[in-house]
């Protein structure tokens, strides 16, 4: 009863792997962070590891709405992009130091999510997906048109944060491993916060809304307001991922706002296992490593990733992590 997620992670009972799964679920933050700590040494190069961290965080934030609350948003690129652009713009145009710049990025994404969420949470199901898609594309064109500020089609260049200037520490992001652990520090805090929210009474509200909206309403839940709050929290996490991506890439490509990026979050969540704590990182890892490996062979990598995606949806709808959990707890 001390666990928050009622899904597979909880429903484990007396089998060999079950103990391990239960242990990981109980210490899910430690398990994720422990893995991510040694992770860059398992990959051919660190930039890929940083990508996986950032997109894993993006998918994690998205998963709050999609996996835990059971609502499909197709507009999360807006929050990723707003986080990216806000951080990039205050660094490039106003010379703001990196830490406040990242916070500004997170807040900007939160404001975007508050506005889009206020409109979208009036609708349900496919309409919710469509409204979020349409509004996020509005954000895309708005930023596209603000060329002086955003760099328009070329994206925003010159987000150059190299020296961290921490008191007593002389770290440079030019070192890939340092950059990885720089991003990791933010992801670690975010993962801890995320787990804390899931374990809170509001986490139970998310589950209840996913399970049975009508019953939740009869229990006294203001469905629209609760969904809105979840949407905003989710937007904050995605905004942090975007802000980190701006610093990681040193540019903000306009594609970060494109609905293609929203699609990435959906794909990574489904691939990893929606509504599981580890799923988003597993999904981001699978997707980005596959992209990396297949690109070496053919430029038509999307064809193969697409085929794999369809395969998973048809045969393993729980996703990679969800399926593993299911097997372990059967």
């Amino acid at each position: 009863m001390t666990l928050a997620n009622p899904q597979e992670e909880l429903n484990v009972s007396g089998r060999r792997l079950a103990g391990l799964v239960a242990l990981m679920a109980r210490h899910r933050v430690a398990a994720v962070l422990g893995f991510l700590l040694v992770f860059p040494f398992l990959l051919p190069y660190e930039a890929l590891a940083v990508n996986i961290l950032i997109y894993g965080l993006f998918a994690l934030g998205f998963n709050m709405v999609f996996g835990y609350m059971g609502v499909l948003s197709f507009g999360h690129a807006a929050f990723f992009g707003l986080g990216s652009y806000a951080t990039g713009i205050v660094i490039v145009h106003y010379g703001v130091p990196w830490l406040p710049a990242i916070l500004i990025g997170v807040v900007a994404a939160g404001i975007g999510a508050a506005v889009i969420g206020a409109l979208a949470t009036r609708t349900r199901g496919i309409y919710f997906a469509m409204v979020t898609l349409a509004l996020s594309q509005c954000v895309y064109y708005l930023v596209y048109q603000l060329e002086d500020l955003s760099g328009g089609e070329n994206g925003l260049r010159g987000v150059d944060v190299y020296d961290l200037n921490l008191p007593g520490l002389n770290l440079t992001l030019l070192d890939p491993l340092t950059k990885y652990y720089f991003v990791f520090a933010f992801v670690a805090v975010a993962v801890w916060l995320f787990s804390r929210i899931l374990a809170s009474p509001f986490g139970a509200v998310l589950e209840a809304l996913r399970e049975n909206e009508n019953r939740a309403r009869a229990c006294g839940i203001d469905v629209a307001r609760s969904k809105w709050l979840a949407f905003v929290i989710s937007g904050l996490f995605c905004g942090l991922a975007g802000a980190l991506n701006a610093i990681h890439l040193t540019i903000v490509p306009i594609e970060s706002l494109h609905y293609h990026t929203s699609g990435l979050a959906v794909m990574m969540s489904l691939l990893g296992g929606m509504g599981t704590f580890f799923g988003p990182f597993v999904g981001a890892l699978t997707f980005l490593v596959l992209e990396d490996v297949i690109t070496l062979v053919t430029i038509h990598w999307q064809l193969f990733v697409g085929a794999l995606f369809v395969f998973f949806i048809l045969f393993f709808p729980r996703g990679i992590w969800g399926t593993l959990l299911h097997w372990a707890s059967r």
Partner: protein
Amino acid sequence: MTNTDTNILRAEKVSMRFGGFTALNDVSVTFPEGQLTAIIGPNGAGKSTFFNVISGAFPPSQGRIFFRGKEITGVPQHRFARLGIAKSFQITNVFPQLTALENVRFAIQCMSQRFNVWTPRGRFREMEEQAAALLQMVELDKHHHRLAMNLAHGEQRALEIALALACNPSLLLLDEPTAGMSPEETTAMMDLIIRLAAQRTVILVEHKMKLVMGISNRLIVLHHGELLAEGTPDDVRANDEVRRVYLGQGNH
């Protein structure tokens, strides 16, 4: 409006139209505090529509609803639980992939911790104890850790009643609580309703007249969306109109 009488709920000239169809026509009823009132009527009488209107699922086309003398017409559904009005649905309505205990604990949590994103749930020990007490009341104390979806039909209905009781309601609204139940489950549910009615006002919608005759203090008979009769079970049984439209059908 002041609450001068002992009525907990009052429907005043309530009408409900869906397009051109009039489901309820000018129904005025009062529900005295502390009594078990059953709303009965043949199929299509407007029972469920009336239930939905008084339980706040949708506002009536015309007319007003008062709870303890205070108007609640058009009050959003989620506020009802906090007012102390709880309901069970006609179709079983629980959280299928949560355990029985988690179901009830959630409903209890809804009374005080709706937007708390910080405190771990495990800290609220008293909620778990309250949930266990409610499960015991509906005789599900052996099933704390079973998923709601794996409970038998009658058990799920009992669980739903526990969810409704979580807000400690002074008014409990039940829409055909024995629908789809076996005779044994029906008997157990009726016993439960009698126990619950000892402590609070209960309004019950029921299709099967025989079931409620013995346990209700009052009956309200709807027919074609209009109030046909109201009174004690004996009054209603003696009412010629009721006999004609309802009892005379022979299959009840």
